[in-house]
């Protein structure tokens, strides 16, 4: 080993190698950012939201205890509404859903309610409202379920509209206004 080599090694923090370190740092930072972005997107359920298969795979009991697979409505425009009796805005929008189900059911719309609630309360409210579409019981686990479908804040009402091909056409946190619903159904039916 001669003096020149030692000097070369000692000269490590020279401009080019510092630049190389900087490039490595940038690559690492970009990789980290992309990793965070990917985790964020995944957590936000955007992938799941685009693809409605997670919704169509659900099997939940109805208010009478019968297991219902959402896949039975494949091919319909499916409006899946997460709701609860303890959620006043949820109850307030449901008469519109009942009316829309009656009006457009024959054209291929199917509403399905998933209640974050007890079966007794769901039965009582369904009776009072003369609910004309299935009220499935998700219990409080349904909140977690809705989170995997894009409901990050775990709030209600939360509604997912699937087109006839099972793709997510719309996701709504908060009331789904009749005008918006009509516009969506006009496009999807």
């Amino acid at each position, binding site marked *: 080993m001669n003096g020149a080599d030692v000097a070369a090694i000692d000269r490590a923090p020279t401009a080019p190698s510092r630049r190389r370190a900087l490039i490595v740092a*940038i690559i690492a*930072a*970009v990789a980290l*950012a992309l990793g965070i*972005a990917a985790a*964020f*997107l995944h957590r*936000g*359920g*955007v992938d799941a*939201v*685009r693809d409605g298969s997670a919704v169509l795979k659900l099997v939940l009991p109805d208010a009478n205890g019968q297991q219902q697979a959402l896949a039975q409505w494949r091919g319909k425009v499916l409006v899946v509404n997460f709701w*609860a*009796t*303890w*959620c*006043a*805005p*949820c*109850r*307030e929008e449901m008469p519109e859903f009942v009316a829309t189900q009656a009006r457009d059911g024959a054209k291929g719309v199917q509403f399905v309610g998933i209640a*974050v609630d007890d079966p007794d309360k769901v039965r009582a*409210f369904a009776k*009072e409202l003369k609910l004309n579409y299935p009220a499935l019981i998700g219990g*409080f686990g349904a*909140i977690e379920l809705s989170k995997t479908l*894009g409901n*990050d*804040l*775990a*709030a*209600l*009402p939360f509604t997912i509209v699937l087109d006839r091909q099972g793709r*997510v056409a*719309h*996701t*709504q*946190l*908060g*009331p789904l206004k009749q005008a918006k619903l009509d516009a969506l159904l006009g496009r999807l039916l």
Partner: protein
Amino acid sequence: MRRLVPLFWLLLATAHAEGISSLAPKLLPPEQAFRLSARALDADTIEARFDVADGYYLYRDRMHFATEPVPAAKAVLPPGKPKHDAFFGDVETYRGEVVVRVPLTKTAAGQKITLHADSQGCADVGVCYPPNPQQLTLVVPAVGDKPGAFVEPGSKGWFK
């Protein structure tokens, strides 16, 4: 790197706008919409507070408090604002600051008390949050001591 930052945000924004049309960006997470804190006022009393953000409200009859290892007597809830609910009938709601007294018995100075606070509320824009069970730990002050400091639930611990 600085040049890449806007790209990063653009990526996130596009991804978010794509799938979800919602109120989410405007809504607070429940622990910020309904901020809970509590302190031990004296050896026999816990004072719990909910700081309700503007545009949000809590239901009085959905608020429950319990303590351990020493059980609390019934919490003293202030009267709320009456609201008629089509399904549940007359209910009361809270906005702004809610101060609740939770009476304790048979505590010892320096004893750690865990307060369980359940609450449920909604936002005026038309969403409700599920019942939110929270807990925090307080230390009982000695007789004649000043009230303890306000404590918030542990989930915020990593900011401290």
